[in-house]
C-alpha cells in the first residue's frame, strides 16, 4: 500500500520477506528520497547512541525511537524508514494513529521539512493555517470552513515551503479531517458509517469534500485560544508571531542543535513575512469563528 502526503510517498511494506527487501533497498538507495518505507521488524528497547530523551522518545542525530508502553515501538531512521514492533494487544488502527501522530513529524524533521502542528485550509485560492493547543478547535473550525466551500490542505500537521522570493506554500496532506463526534454533530457533518480512528480512543476520520492536490500559497496564520476570550481577532506583534509559530514545531526538543537553530530561523522568517493573528474564541461557535477569521484576514 502506498500513500502520497506532504510531497513524499509512504510505502507500507507489510512484513513479508519480499517487503523486507524493499525496506533494505529503499534504506540504502539515496535516489529514493521521495519514498519512505514502513515495515515490521525488531525495534530495540533503547537507542544505543541516544543523545536526547523525553516522554516516550529517545533520539540521536539520525534515528529516533518511540515507545508506547504495552502497545508498540517505532524506530524512525534517516527520514526514510519507519520500523514497527507491535505488542500482542496492538492492531492496525493503533499502528496507523501512532505512525501519523508520532512517527510522521519525526520523519518530516529528519527530511528537513518545516512542519508545524495545525490545520491548513484553502479559501479562495490561498491557505490560512490554523494553529493552537490541542483541543482549541482547529479541526472543528476547519470543518466549518470546508462546509462553506473551502478546500482542505492538511489537518494535524502542516508542512511549509518558502522559496527565494519569500512566498510560503503549504504542502497537501491526506484528504482527511480528524474530528470528534460532538463537533461533527454540532456542525451537522454526516457521520453515519464513518470509522473511528482507533477503538476506545474516540475521534473520527472524515473524508474532506475537497482536498488540495498541490501546494497552496499561505496568506496568514490564525492562532486559536479556546480558554479565554473576547471573540476578537487581533494581529500579533512580530515577537508574539515568531513565538506562536516556533512553539508549534513538534518534537523540536529531540532534534540536533543545528536542526533546532535551522527550524527557529526558518519559522521565524515565515512569521515575520506573513500576518499571524490570535483569536480568543471564548464562547464563539465554530462557524462564527471561521467567519471572523476570514473577515479579519481578508480571505
Amino acid at each position, binding site marked *: 500500500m502506498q500513500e502520497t502526503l506532504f510531497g513524499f510517498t509512504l510505502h507500507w511494506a507489510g512484513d513479508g520477506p519480499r517487503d523486507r527487501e524493499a525496506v533494505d533497498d529503499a534504506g540504502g538507495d539515496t535516489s529514493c528520497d521521495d519514498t519512505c518505507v514502513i515495515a515490521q521488524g525488531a525495534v530495540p528497547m533503547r537507542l544505543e547512541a541516544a543523545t536526547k530523551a523525553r516522554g516516550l522518545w529517545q533520539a540521536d542525530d539520525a534515528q529516533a525511537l518511540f515507545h508506547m508502553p504495552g502497545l508498540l515501538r517505532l524506530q524512525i531512521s534517516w527520514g526514510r524508514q519507519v520500523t514497527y514492533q507491535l505488542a500482542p494487544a496492538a492492531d492496525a488502527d493503533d499502528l496507523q494513529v501512532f505512525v501519523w501522530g508520532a512517527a510522521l513529524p519525526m520523519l518530516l524533521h529528519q527530511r528537513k521539512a518545516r512542519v508545524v502542528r495545525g490545520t491548513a485550509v484553502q479559501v479562495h485560492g490561498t491557505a490560512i493555517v490554523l494553529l493552537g*493547543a490541542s483541543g482549541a478547535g482547529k479541526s472543528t473550525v476547519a470543518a466549518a470552513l470546508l462546509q462553506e466551500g473551502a478546500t482542505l490542505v492538511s489537518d494535524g500537521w502542516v508542512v511549509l515551503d518558502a522559496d527565494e522570493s519569500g512566498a510560503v506554500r503549504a504542502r497537501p496532506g491526506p484528504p482527511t479531517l480528524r474530528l470528534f463526534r460532538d463537533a461533527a454533530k454540532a456542525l451537522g457533518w454526516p457521520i453515519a458509517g464513518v470509522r473511528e480512528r482507533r477503538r476506545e480512543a474516540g*475521534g473520527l476520520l472524515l473524508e474532506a469534500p475537497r482536498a488540495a492536490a498541490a501546494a497552496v500559497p499561505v496568506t496568514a496564520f490564525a492562532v486559536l485560544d479556546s480558554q479565554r476570550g473576547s471573540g476578537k481577532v487581533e494581529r500579533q506583534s512580530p515577537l508574539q508571531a515568531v513565538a506562536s509559530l516556533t512553539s508549534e514545531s513538534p518534537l523540536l526538543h529531540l532534534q540536533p542543535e543545528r536542526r533546532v537553530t535551522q527550524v527557529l530561523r526558518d519559522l521565524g522568517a515565515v512569521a515575520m513575512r506573513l500576518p499571524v493573528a490570535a483569536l480568543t474564541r471564548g464562547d464563539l461557535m465554530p462557524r462564527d469563528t471561521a467567519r471572523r477569521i476570514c473577515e479579519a484576514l481578508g480571505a
Partner: protein
Amino acid sequence: MSGFYWLASYPKSGNTWMRALLQACYEEPEHVLDLNHLGGGGLVRARGAFDGWCGAPSADMTVDEIACLLPAFIGHLAGGVGRYPFVKTHGACLLNRDGEWVHDPLHTAGAILVVRHPGDVAVSLMHHLALDLDGVLEMMGTHDTWFGGQRHRLGSILPEVIGSWSQHCASWLDGPHRKMCIRYEDLLEDTVREMNRVLAFMGVARDSQHIGHAVETSRFERLQQQETDQGFVERPAHALRFFRQGTAGGWRETFSAAQRARLRRDHEPVMRRLGYAP
C-alpha cells in the same frame, strides 16, 4: 519533602477559593490577586503540556493509556515546581492499570483534601454543568465517573477519574500521601483559623497580619466581583457564573425528599466520616 502539594477536591468544593487564599499567602501583601492568572491551576491535566512532554497526541490515546503515562508526566513537572508548590486536582486518588498511583507519592509533598457537604456540591454542580439535580446526583453517585472524557469530544483538559463523591473523598482520606482535610464549611466559618492549619501543614510561616490580608483579598465577594468585571477563564461556556453563592446549607431548600433520600443512600458512610449529618 519535595514535590507538589495536591489541592484535592471533588469539583465545586472550594478548590479555587483555596488556590486564591494560598496564592495570597505566598505573595507579599501588596500583591494584587488576578483571578485569570491564579496559581496552582490544572497544569497536570493540560493536554498541550502533556502532548509536548510525551511527544504524541493524547487525542489518539485511550483514557487508561493516559492514566498510565500520568505518573511519569507528573514526575517531569515536579522536577520544576515553580513559585507555588500547590496544584489543584479533581482526580480521585487511584491506581492506574499498571498498579501505580496516578498522583505519584514520590513527587508529592502532601495532599490537602478540601471537602464540602455533597448537597451543596450537587446544587453548585447543577449550575456549573447545566444539568438537572437528578442528573448531578446520578453522576455523584456513580463509581469511577470520568471528567473530561474524550470518547465524544476533545477538550484542552485531559480526562481523569473523579469517581463518585464518596469514592473521591475516601480515596484521598485513605490514600498513601501525607495529608490533611479541610471542610468548606469550616473555611467559611473561620477562614483565618483554617488557613493557619493549612500553612502549618505546608511548613509555611506567615504572621497573622499577612494571613488576615490574604483572607480579605480572597473573600468570596471579591472573587465574584472580579468575575463580573473581567470574566473568569475557568468558567465553563454553559455556566452563567463560576462564583455563584459560596454559602453552606442552601441545598436543603432545593432538594426534594426523594433527592435527600438518594443522597443519604449513596453517601451516608463517607458523610458521617467527614462530620456531615446525612
